[in-house]
C-alpha cells in the first residue's frame, strides 16, 4: 500500500476549489467523529477540580492529566463488578458463538447432505421471521434463566448473518481441496480444523469481532432477565449512571449513586476501549468478509 498518488494520465488536473471542498469535508467528517471522543477522553483524564471549574467537559488540555477518575472508578465496586461480568460474558459468549457458528456453517456448506435443507431453512428463515420480544421473554423466563448469566448469552448466541457469511466463504473454497483431503482419508472434523479453518482466518476474525462487539454492547437482555443488579454488565451500568444519571435500583447496600462527570467519562472510555483495541486488527478484512456475505447471502 503506497501513499503515492496514482492519478491516471487521462484525468483532469484537480481544481483548487474541488480539492478544497473535498479536504474540508474530510476534516469536518473526521472531527464530527473524533472530537467528541477527544473531549470525553480528556475529561476522564482531568481532575475533579478542573471539571468543576470548566463546568462540564474539558476541551483544552493544559490543566494536566491525572488518572484520578480511573482510580475512583476501579474503587467503585459496582463498576468493577460490572466490568468483570462484561468481560466474562463477552469471552464465554464469543467462544461459544464462534465455535457453534463455524461448525454449523461448515455443515451448511455441503449441499445434498442428509438434512441439509432443513438446517439451511431453519437458519435462512431467521432473516425474515422473528419470534418477537414477548414470546422470547416468556420462554426464557419459563426456562428458569431469570437471574442467570446464560440469559445474556443463549438468546443471542447464533447470528444468522454471521453463519451465512462463514458458509459463503467455506463454499468459495475450491472443491479439489476437499476431494484430496477425502482421498487422504480425513474425516469432516479433520478437514474443518486442519484445512478449512486455517484458510478462513480472515473471515473468522471478522465474525469473531462481530460477536464480541455484540456481547460487549448488549444490555437489554440483562435488563430484562437480571433482577439482581450485582449481575449487571458494564453497558447497563453505563446506561443507568451516564444516560439516566440515576442510582442503580436495589443495589446491595453498596454506594450506588451516579459518580462525578470525570468518573462517568472514564466509564464511557472503558466501554469504548475494547472496540478501539481489536478494531485495527480486523478492519482490513471487513470489505472481504462483509461483501461475500452480502453478495452470496
Amino acid at each position, binding site marked *: *500500500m503506497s*501513499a503515492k498518488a496514482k492519478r*491516471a494520465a*487521462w484525468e483532469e488536473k484537480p481544481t483548487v476549489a474541488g480539492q478544497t471542498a473535498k479536504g474540508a*469535508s*474530510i476534516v469536518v*467528517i*473526521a472531527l464530527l*467523529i473524533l472530537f*467528541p471522543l477527544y473531549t*470525553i477522553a480528556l475529561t476522564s483524564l482531568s481532575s475533579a477540580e478542573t471539571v468543576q471549574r470548566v463546568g*462540564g*467537559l474539558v476541551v483544552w488540555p493544559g490543566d494536566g492529566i491525572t488518572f484520578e477518575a480511573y482510580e475512583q472508578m476501579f474503587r467503585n465496586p459496582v463498576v468493577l463488578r460490572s466490568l468483570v461480568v462484561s468481560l466474562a460474558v463477552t469471552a464465554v459468549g464469543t467462544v461459544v458463538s464462534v465455535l457453534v457458528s463455524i*461448525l*454449523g456453517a*461448515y455443515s451448511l456448506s*455441503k449441499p445434498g*447432505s*442428509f438434512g441439509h435443507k432443513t438446517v439451511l431453512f*431453519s437458519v435462512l428463515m*431467521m*432473516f425474515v421471521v*422473528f*419470534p*418477537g*420480544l*414477548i*414470546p*422470547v421473554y416468556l*420462554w*426464557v423466563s*419459563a426456562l428458569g434463566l431469570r437471574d442467570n448469566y446464560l440469559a445474556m448469552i*443463549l*438468546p443471542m*448466541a447464533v447470528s*444468522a448473518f454471521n*453463519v451465512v457469511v462463514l458458509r*459463503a*466463504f467455506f*463454499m*468459495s473454497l*475450491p472443491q479439489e*481441496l476437499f476431494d484430496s483431503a477425502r482421498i487422504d482419508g480425513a474425516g469432516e*472434523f479433520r478437514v474443518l480444523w486442519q484445512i478449512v479453518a486455517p*484458510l478462513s482466518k480472515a473471515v473468522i476474525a471478522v465474525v469473531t469481532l462481530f460477536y464480541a462487539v455484540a456481547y460487549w*454492547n448488549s*444490555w*437489554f437482555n440483562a435488563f*430484562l432477565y437480571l433482577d439482581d443488579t450485582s449481575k449487571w454488565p458494564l*453497558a447497563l451500568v*453505563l446506561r443507568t449512571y451516564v*444516560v*439516566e444519571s440515576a442510582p442503580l435500583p436495589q443495589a446491595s447496600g453498596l454506594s450506588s449513586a451516579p459518580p462525578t462527570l470525570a468518573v462517568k467519562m472514564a466509564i*464511557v472510555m472503558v*466501554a*469504548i476501549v475494547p472496540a478501539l483495541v481489536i*478494531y485495527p486488527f480486523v478492519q482490513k478484512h471487513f470489505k472481504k468478509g462483509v*461483501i461475500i*456475505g452480502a453478495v452470496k*447471502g
Partner: protein
Amino acid sequence: MSTTTIESPAAAAGDAPPRAPQPKAHWLTRLRRDWPLLLMAAPMMLLVWGFWWIPTLGNVVAFQDYKPYTGGILGSRLVGFTHFQLLFSDPEFTRALVNTLSITAFQLVFYFPVPIALALLMHSLVSERLRSMLQSIVYLPYFFSWVLVIAIFQQMLGGAGLLSQTLRGAGFEGVDWMTNPDTFILLVTSQAIWKEAGFGAIIFLAALAAIDPNLYEAAAVDGAGRWRRLWHITLPGIRPVIVLLLILRLGDALNVGFEQFFLQRSAVGSQASEVFDTFVYYSGIRTGDFDYGAAAGLFKGVVGLVLILAANKAAHLLGERGVYSKS
C-alpha cells in the same frame, strides 16, 4: 496438491464454479455418510430452535386471554382476534405506527443518501493512505453500542452538554436537543448517521470498486468531464446496489430499531419517541399484558414479513438479484 494455489479464495468467491451435484443416494446411505455434518450442525440447531423457533410458536399468546401464573400458554383460553381489535382502536398504537413510519420516511430522505455520498468521497481520494485513514475513522462508531452513542450525544448536545456549556459561556441561552420532542426526529437521524453511515458506505465502496476503469478512460478520451463521468458511469454502475438497498429498506419499514428509542423515551416522552418496538415493550412487559403486547408484536412481524417478501419480489421484477438477507 499444494496449498499455495488457493491462497486467496476470496478472490475466487464471485466466480467459483458450481459444486458438482452429488448423486442422491438412499437416505440411509446418506445418513451413514453425513452423520459428522449433522453432529456439527447440532449445537447450532439446538440454539436456533431453542431460542428462535420455539419462542416463535409462543406467539399463540396473542390469541389468548393469557394468564401467566394460573394458566400459562397451555392452560389459557383462546380469544381469537380480540387483542387485535383492541389494538386498532388504541390511540397509543396508532401513534407508535405513525411515529415509526414518519421516522422511516424521514430517514429514507435524509439518511439513505449519506453512505452513498460518503462512499463517493472516499472512492475519489487518490491517496491510498488518506482513504484508509478516513475509512478507519468513519467505520469506528458502528462498533459503539447505542448506550454509548446516546451518552456521547448527551454530553455534546444535552442541557448540560458541551454545546450548552459553550453557549452559556458566550452569554447565550443553553439548548437541550436531547429532551426536545419537536426535534427528536432530527436527533435520531443524526445519531443514526453518526453511528452507521460510515459502515453503510462499505457496500457502495465495493460497488464503486467493481466499475471497470476502462469505462472512465474511454469516456474521458471522448471528452466527458468528471461530472459527466459521475453521472453516466459511476451512478449507473452503482445503481443496482442503490435500488436493492432502497427496496430492502422499504421492506424493513416497520423496523427503526429498538434500543435507540427505548433509551431516549424517558427523556423525550412517548409522544415523539414511541415506535413499534417500544410500544410492544411498554404495553406488554411493563404492564404485564403479555397477550396484548404479543398481538402488537405479531402484527408487526406479519406486516414486516409481507413487506420483505413484496420488496424482494419488486427487486426481482426490476431485474435485480433478490436477497432475503440484510446487508
